[in-house]
């Protein structure tokens, strides 16, 4: 039985609203045809005027606030003058930062600042968007992360997201109704440029498959994630719960590359068969290098991603299905086709 959803709040605060997930979420909350369309005030947090103007165009009830998560005073307008039920959807975070210090400042510090704000305004529910990174990687391709797992953070990002989760649990102890959604690697419209690179690599047959390619990856199509996030907000579960929100099943790396290749072909691209195999050792070297670089407080995106490519990161969404009625509708092939079409419509070079 699908759990019943509570009424929409009078006001919704959305952080990271100009980000990948945030943009998709804002569209889902405001588009008339969207199953997640809601009335009421929406206060997105953005970092600059250009982002604010883009969101204001979505309607009069959208009241963007320009602020900085590392500067709590700038967040005050998010909660000012709101009446009635307020929910907070905290999607903001940094995954590929300039320096390692940004991880803690934004992911942990920013979450603490938002939790404090939610406590101040008496929010009905706070939904924190976490990650797979606090839990590291699976020991082998057959393993699946269960809903509850021991922390084993993967480098600086993982540690900062773990600290953010711990801050959420502390707030729950203090009485805030907060829950956590944990998406793995996501894909879909509104993607940032690094994901376009991914399509280009696959199209040219140059995506580096490390080792046997049987390592598994959970991924989540961004609209599936929006569904999970809104359900986490509206299903009246106990506070302090956390759920994996991912596609129905994890995919092998080889399947991901093959499926993206098919999706590109179906959208009219000429795809070179992928023969780029990299010895498993390269992945281990990259992981080691990533660790060394991060210990010096710096961050190198390509090295980090390469170091992670030989790992299995796969989760089991069963508990989200049961407790939230979460039902991921889009699978990899369809999701990738939509993603590619979105790029084409925006004139992005693949």
């Amino acid at each position: 039985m699908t759990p019943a959803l509570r009424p929409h709040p009078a006001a919704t605060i959305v952080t990271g609203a100009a980000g990948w997930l945030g943009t998709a979420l804002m569209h889902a909350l405001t588009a008339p045809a969207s199953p997640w369309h809601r009335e009421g005030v929406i206060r997105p947090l953005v970092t600059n005027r250009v982002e604010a103007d883009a969101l204001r165009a979505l309607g009069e009830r959208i009241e963007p606030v320009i602020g900085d998560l590392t500067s709590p005073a700038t967040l005050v307008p998010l909660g000012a003058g709101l009446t009635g039920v307020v929910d907070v959807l905290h999607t903001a975070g940094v995954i590929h930062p300039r320096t390692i210090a940004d991880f803690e400042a934004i992911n942990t510090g920013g979450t603490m600042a938002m939790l404090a704000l939610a406590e101040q305004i008496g929010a009905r529910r706070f939904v924190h968007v976490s990650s797979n990174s606090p839990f590291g990687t699976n020991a082998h391709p057959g393993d699946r992360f269960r809903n509850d797992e021991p922390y084993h953070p993967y480098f600086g990002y993982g540690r900062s997201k773990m600290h953010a989760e711990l801050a959420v649990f502390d707030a729950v102890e203090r009485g805030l109704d907060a829950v956590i959604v944990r998406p793995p690697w996501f894909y879909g419209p509104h993607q940032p440029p690094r994901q376009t690179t991914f399509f280009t690599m696959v199209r040219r047959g140059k995506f580096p498959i490390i080792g046997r390619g049987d390592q598994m990856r959970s991924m989540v199509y961004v609209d599936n994630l929006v569904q999970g996030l809104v359900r986490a907000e509206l299903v009246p579960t106990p506070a302090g719960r956390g759920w994996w929100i991912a596609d129905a099943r994890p995919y092998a790396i080889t399947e991901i590359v093959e499926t993206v290749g098919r999706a590109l072909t179906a959208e009219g691209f000429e795809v070179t068969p992928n023969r780029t195999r990299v010895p498993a050792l390269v992945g281990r070297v990259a992981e080691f290098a990533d660790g060394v670089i991060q210990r010096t407080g710096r961050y190198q995106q390509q090295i980090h991603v390469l170091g992670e490519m030989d790992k299995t990161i796969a989760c089991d969404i069963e508990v989200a299905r049961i407790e939230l009625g979460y039902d991921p509708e889009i699978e990899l092939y369809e999701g990738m086709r939509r993603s590619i079409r979105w790029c084409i419509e925006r004139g992005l070079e693949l």
Partner: protein
Amino acid sequence: MRFVDPRPHHDCQVLVIGSGAGGATTAAILAEAGHDVLIVEEGPWVEQGSVVPFSLEQMDRQYRAGGVTVALGRPSIAYTEGRCAGGGTEINSGLYRRPSEGTLERWRRQTTIADFTDDEFYAACDEIEIALSVQTVPGRHTPASERLRDGAAALGWAHDEIPRWMSYPAGGDASTGKRESMTRTFLPRAAAAGAAMLVEHRVERIVRDRDRAFRAELTGPEGQPVTVDFDVVVVCGGAIQSPALLQRSGWRGLVGKGLAVHPTVKLSARFDAPVNVVDDVPVHQVKEFSPDLSFGGSASQPGLVALSLSDHWPLMRDAVTSWRDIAVYYAAITSEGRGRVTAVPAMRDPLVTYRLTGRDRALLGQGLARLALVMLEAGALEVYPSFRDAPIVRKRADLADATAMFRAATASVMTVHLCSTVPMGEDRTRAATDSMGRVHGAENVYVNDASLLPDAPGVNPQASVMAIAMRNARRLAERLT
């Protein structure tokens, strides 16, 4: 038991070497089929109940080498073997689990075992379960067992109670069970059918004339040489001693090469109330990640609690005084690695090596962390993982430190389930004996113990060992008639 007086020479039709799960079963089946059976056992006969289970005295009297031997590797893996009448069945936890149909099918294919049906195998299990009164605990479980169960339940992880070969008085609970080991079951059965037993005699070598063996050379309790002449010999010394004896006797090839174990890592957990039961072990296991990972409870008498804290003694030693509130638990993995048993000239014990794979190491770490999470959910105040310089885990955030610091190479890895050193099957490139345990290249030399399993069963192995021993002993009895 009908013990044979020490003499310089004995004759028999069938010589059974070893009296554990494999040897006792073999001896009983053959004796009941009317064959003249002599059982030789290296260790002493110790009545069940005359020493405290899991005690130091028991280690001294009933274990090989005082309790611990080591398979060399990085990390080295400590293992224990019984060395007494009844072998491992006298000293282990008594946990009994049938291997799955999937495991039987894997074995059948792996070494091409002929005429090996599920029906026959499980019918043997039925018989064994009656003979050993395999059952779950009728009354209350031990506190340590209940904690493990409750922790798993809180996480929504699959768990169950493993039946044991135990008998209980009416209305008894976990602590009143009596172990239905080989000295109380199959060895008396063998004796009732006429089998004789020679204890505290070690078989040094089997003497052969080309493919036919005819004599065993033994050392008696006073160090005196003894010989036994036989028509057929069945080697049931367990997965370390059986291949070592065969190698000393000139059968090499695949013998000793495929050692398979369930490597385990441990932790101890301190609760807010007494959980320690010195003479019993938990019967619950967490099966959520089965067969890759299983969690269960270990023997926890004070010496073993101290041992489990010794990996980071300066940090953890204070906990020893609270040993009554502490129980030891393990995380076991099915390993992709393999090991080797090699008899070394002039050395009493063989050289044993084992190599864990990268996946095995990662799984040990993940298993230990998940087990620690079970303990926190079960209400543990402190968790002490067993690896060098491990931190004390008091809350979830501490698990991040523990997982970051874990290295399989510095963990106290041990095992109790040793097998697969003389695998059976028709495929001579993979199996060291035929499908009934007769050593390839020998006319009348059989193996009938844990060595025959093509790989580790992923569950407590005694059911597998005994069911295969029963099957093979019946075939042999027919062949001899």
